[in-house]
């Protein structure tokens, strides 16, 4: 039984990335409507942020309710550098990421000493402050109306100014992020992070420099979010503060938790579920309840979210994989323990 399930699991782990990459590559051949592509581009951009959040939440066990701030710093960094100073977009993206890393480092040193609710609150406070800076520093950010005329990214003769090229660009970055994250998770750092998640004091007693690891992963996570923000800027080509507020931070946490925070593929599931659910509700509700507006969609969204969390607290991805792996365990008693670890590579 155990052998069977571990073999099956190893099989999934090898085959899944290959299948996903293949499906992603071929998809535009079958359907290249801009509706589908732009949805997938957003799923990609949000996935990058959510994966970075999962590294922080699922592995290091540190919550962040202010990740939209890093995402926004990438977006605004790119926008300001390219629009106001005419910097090359790629260079702008790197500069924004470096700046975000510095801010995350400075913020992280005092913040990561905090625990649980206090950490949640401090990151939340930081997120709100950054959001208010976006809306108030009109000279730089254009205030509430924002900035427009952000240039497209280009590579030699290829300009990423249509959905199909941007789709490939974004998903290459997503797969790179997944690759990097998987490597980190299965390395010495990953083990140290899981130890911190399990018990910080115990990890420290075993000689893990918890403060340094937490800070590193926090900065890395911020850099991923910043890059995703830059990608957003160069896709939409105009920005305003609204997608970078507290609601977005919450939405990122939501996507992460729905997919399951302690996995690298979970975020892709979580982001897709949240985005498709939103789209589906938008389409289905006027049909089911004639005359109903977008408000019903919000109600339904909130309720579905709560229900998923009540009955599958380990997230959809983890929850479904576990149930498929070991259905007997779930026949009578629902999930006794949220499985908090992504299994290590069998050695």
């Amino acid at each position, binding site marked *: 039984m155990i052998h069977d399930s571990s073999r099956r699991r190893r099989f999934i782990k090898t085959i899944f990335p290959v299948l996903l990459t293949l499906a992603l590559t071929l998809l535009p051949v079958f359907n290249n409507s801009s509706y589908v592509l732009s949805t997938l581009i957003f799923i990609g951009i949000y996935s990058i942020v959510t994966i970075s959040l999962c590294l922080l939440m699922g592995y290091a066990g540190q919550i962040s309710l202010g990740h939209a701030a890093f995402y926004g710093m990438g977006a605004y960094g790119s926008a300001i550098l390219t629009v106001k100073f005419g910097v090359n977009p790629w260079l702008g993206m790197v500069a924004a990421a470096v700046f975000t890393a510095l801010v995350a480092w400075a913020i992280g040193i005092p913040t990561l000493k905090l625990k649980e609710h206090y950490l949640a*609150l401090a990151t939340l406070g930081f997120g709100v402050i950054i959001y208010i800076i976006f809306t108030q520093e009109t000279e730089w950010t254009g205030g509430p109306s924002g900035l427009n005329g952000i240039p497209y990214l280009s590579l030699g003769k290829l300009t990423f100014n249509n959905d199909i090229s941007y789709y490939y660009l974004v998903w290459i970055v997503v797969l790179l992020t997944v690759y990097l994250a998987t490597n980190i998770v299965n390395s010495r750092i990953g083990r140290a992070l899981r130890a911190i998640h399990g018990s910080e004091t115990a990890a420290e007693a075993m000689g893990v420099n918890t403060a340094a690891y937490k800070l590193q992963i926090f900065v890395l996570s911020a850099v991923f979010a910043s890059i995703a923000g830059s990608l957003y800027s160069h896709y939409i080509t105009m920005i305003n503060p609204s997608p970078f507020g*507290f609601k977005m931070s919450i939405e990122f946490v939501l996507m992460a938790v729905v997919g399951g925070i302690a996995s690298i593929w979970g975020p892709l599931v979580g982001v897709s579920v949240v985005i498709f659910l939103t789209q589906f509700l938008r389409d289905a509700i006027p049909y089911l309840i004639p005359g109903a507006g977008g408000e019903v969609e*919000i109600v339904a969204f909130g309720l579905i979210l709560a229900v998923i969390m009540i009955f599958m607290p380990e997230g959809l991805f983890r929850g479904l994989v576990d149930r498929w792996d070991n259905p007997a365990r779930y026949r009578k008693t629902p999930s006794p323990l949220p499985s908090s670890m992504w299994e290590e590579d069998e050695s």
Partner: protein
Amino acid sequence: MDPGQLLQLLIAGLVLGVIYALIAVGFITVYNVTGIINFAQGEFVMLGAMLAVTLHKYHLPLPLILLISVAAMALTGMLMQRLAIRPAKSATLVTFIIISIGISIALRGAALLIWGTNPYTLPPFSSQTGLEWLGAHIQVQSLWILAITLFAFAGLFYFFEKTYTGKAVKACVINPNAAELMGINPQSMSLLAFAIAGGMGALAGVVITPITLASYDMGLMFGLKGFVAAVLGGLSSVPGALIGGVLLGILESLGAGYISSGYKDALAFLILVLILFVKPDGLLGKIRGNRV
């Protein structure tokens, strides 16, 4: 610095502060009894206010409106505990945060559905609108708010210190495990905590509406500020909520008056972050050891 203006800002801050304190009481009671940070707390404030606005259209007297609204939200809080919190027994901290965020999104959506995006108002509780005192212009509604909150806090004090049920809740707040060993049922205490949270939230919403207007999206900021107040006060006691709330309200009001009104929310959170860095357990926090 004009003393009249200073006084006016201080009073405005005090009023805002007691409102935050009422909301913080909800956070603190629920957190200490159940270990959950209830992000739907702000929606109780909004729903209480909106319900009061609707009841006012039927020309009910204001005290009755206040009572109905508080009772209805206490009931909503209990419903939330039964339907959303109780079924998720083994959930982790983050999961409970997400569940309560889900509920809060649903409640906000429901409010949007029922009341739309327009802001509504209630008339002030008495016909006289303002008075001058030492050069400061004071809204009479402010005095009403202070009086009603004072009354509410006196009621809470009586409940927690003098009644058997209140002492049982307090016992859960101090040590849930010991309380359970003494035969206190944690489920009914949790239900009661949510009722208190709903009721106090609604009270805050109804009394502040004549000053700030009520709209479907008011819950988010009120909820966040209430949370900040709760943490400033140490997240552990009702007097702490009052001190944290008033401190936050006054700082916010002075910041808006003397520094920048655009940055007033940022200032509140900046102070919060600074205090967390210096004194991570809140200003009145208990000293706790690390648990392995």
